[in-house]
């Protein structure tokens, strides 16, 4: 009886069967890497704004405190976006002829707010409150990164749930003394875990990992 298949089919079928395992594993691995990549999370990707506002210049060069603009961060869930008036406190005098500031002056003149593009956005099914974090010793830079080094604002974290849970499961890794919350230069001490543990007790930090803590 004539052969149906060529001899090479033997090799081909072996390669197919063994290769399938690696192909499937490779595809799954690639999907896992893709969903964690900046392409999906936008981590470290600068966001284009109507005015190229530089946190680096305002925080680092000028030494302006976070709360000068984000006024409600200590008392509200939302840190607050400054109205154009806040800009105009200085810019009614400074760089009044600069072309990049034209949208700011236009906003001040017409009383229409500048439409900033959101950088750190959580989904609507996540309940998040800035005030509790700030008042329990979670510093700005812990989540937002070295804002004083960012010419254009970008996400410093993936904002994925695993990132939230990393701290919620063990806050001692990240908490700092309350007087250091707004510091741009604070670095975790060598004994962060022990110091953090003490702060967790002192500030009565409950590491909440119930679903309904965030998904209310």
């Amino acid at each position, binding site marked *: 009886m004539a052969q149906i298949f060529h001899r090479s089919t033997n090799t081909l079928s072996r390669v197919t069967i063994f290769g399938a395992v690696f192909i499937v594993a490779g595809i799954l691995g690639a999907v896992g890497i893709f969903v964690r990549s900046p392409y999906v999370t936008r981590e470290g990707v600068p966001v284009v704004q109507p005015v190229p506002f530089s946190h680096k210049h305002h925080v680092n060069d000028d030494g302006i405190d976070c709360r000068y603009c984000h006024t409600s961060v200590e008392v509200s869930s939302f840190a607050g976006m400054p109205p154009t008036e806040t800009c105009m406190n200085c810019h009614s005098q400074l760089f009044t002829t600069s072309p990049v500031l034209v949208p700011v002056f236009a906003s001040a003149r017409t009383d229409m707010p500048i439409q900033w593009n959101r950088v750190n956005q959580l989904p609507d099914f996540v309940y998040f409150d800035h005030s509790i974090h700030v008042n329990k010793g979670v510093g700005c830079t812990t989540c937002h990164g070295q804002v004083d080094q960012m010419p254009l604002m970008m996400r410093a974290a993936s904002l994925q*749930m695993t990132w*939230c849970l990393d701290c919620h499961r063990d806050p001692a890794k990240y908490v700092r003394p309350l007087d250091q919350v707004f510091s741009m230069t604070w670095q975790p001490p060598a004994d962060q875990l022990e110091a953090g543990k003490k702060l967790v007790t002192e500030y009565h930090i409950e590491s909440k990992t119930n679903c309904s803590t965030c998904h209310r």
Partner: protein
Amino acid sequence: MSEQIRNPSHSPVVAPGYTFRTVTEKISSIVLKGTPRGWYVGFAICFLLAMMLLVAVTYLFIAGVGIWGINVPVAWAFAITNFVWWIGIGHAGTLISAILLLLRQTWRTSINRFAEAMTLFAVACAALFPILHLGRPYFAYWLIPYPSAMGVWPNFRSPLVWDFFAVTTYGLVSLMFWYVGLIPDLGTLRDRAHNTWAKMAYGLLAMGWRGSAYHWQRYHKSYFLLAALATPLVVSVHTIVSFDFAVAILPGWHSTIFPPYFVAGAIFSGFAMVLTITIPLRAFYHLEDFVTVRHLNAMAKVMLVSGLVVAYGYMTEIFLSWYSGNTFEEFLTQNRVFGPYAALFWVLLLCNVVIPQALWLRRVRTNALLLFIISVLINVGMWVERLVIVVGSLSRDYLPSAWGMFAPTAWDWATFIGTLGLFFALMFLFIRLLPMISMAEMRELVQETQPHATAEAAAKPE
């Protein structure tokens, strides 16, 4: 015939006069020689029903589970009933192919192949329902424990996750067992096919089977290993399905009798489905020589025994509701027997307990038509039983103010009947494309039971 009625257990498992050649010829010709008109008619009907399932599921995905009759308090109804029913039906296939193989029951040989196919298709139908029942079915993959970006694992304390593992394992092991068993037959079909495409298809699937001594030795080893692997699944899968109920605290669900009672019910309904398929199939393809009255008799006996265990389960439930002294348990039984769904309870009692008692009579066990009617009724009864358990308990639990009734919608029925269509359409495709009886094992059986006939045939130059 009268002899067979006297004692079919002693009659041979293959009618006399068969040789290797004639066995192979008879079984492979169903696949390789044309399609009878009846096949087209049957397949067309089932295919249309399967398309109805497609419509029902598509509309379900667009509109959500609100198209079904479910609502609080009866949030589980047809979907879970169908799930338990289908997965139960699969159990007979595994029992026949694995446990009866290890017990060396020769009568399993001619029915194991399509019983296993039935298992596969039943599991496929069953696995649809938990997913369809999700509010957001596109997140069904969250049941899989994988390193997700959410940093959480499924709740391993939930029986629904155990279900996922049980059903997946069951599906995979059944598929492997079925496929490994098919390999020698695929080789035979490859060699006997005349059409080039058929040769190629069977050749690829046969994975280079040459029938050498090495091949046979490895085949037997892996087949028995898989049988051993599948054996615990006969008991474990439906045990875990029963935990979906038993772990809950609802009266009528929260009961330790559930695992054995569910397993017995699964085998009961599974054998009923095997008979429902076998009897028309053997008549249509004239396979009475391979699936003899002895086979029917043996399956009827298994059905009778597992039916008695199920009846014992019903009795225990009723007894314990009184013996527990628990008001809610007592009410549950009262409600089941006389409540708004009482008609269903009496139907299940009739179909699952009263009518199967006819199987004590050898005259009934050896009468294909009666057996077919009884097995269909048992299928109905077992479906109703699951509905009584699911809906009855949910509709009236502790607080009368929280009671509510369930009524199925047209979409409930379309989904259920659609899966019947899918199941039988797949069965039709299976019997047309693959040998529904294992040729290799039948040849072994002929060799064992009729050594003289085969020796004579071998000596004769053909």
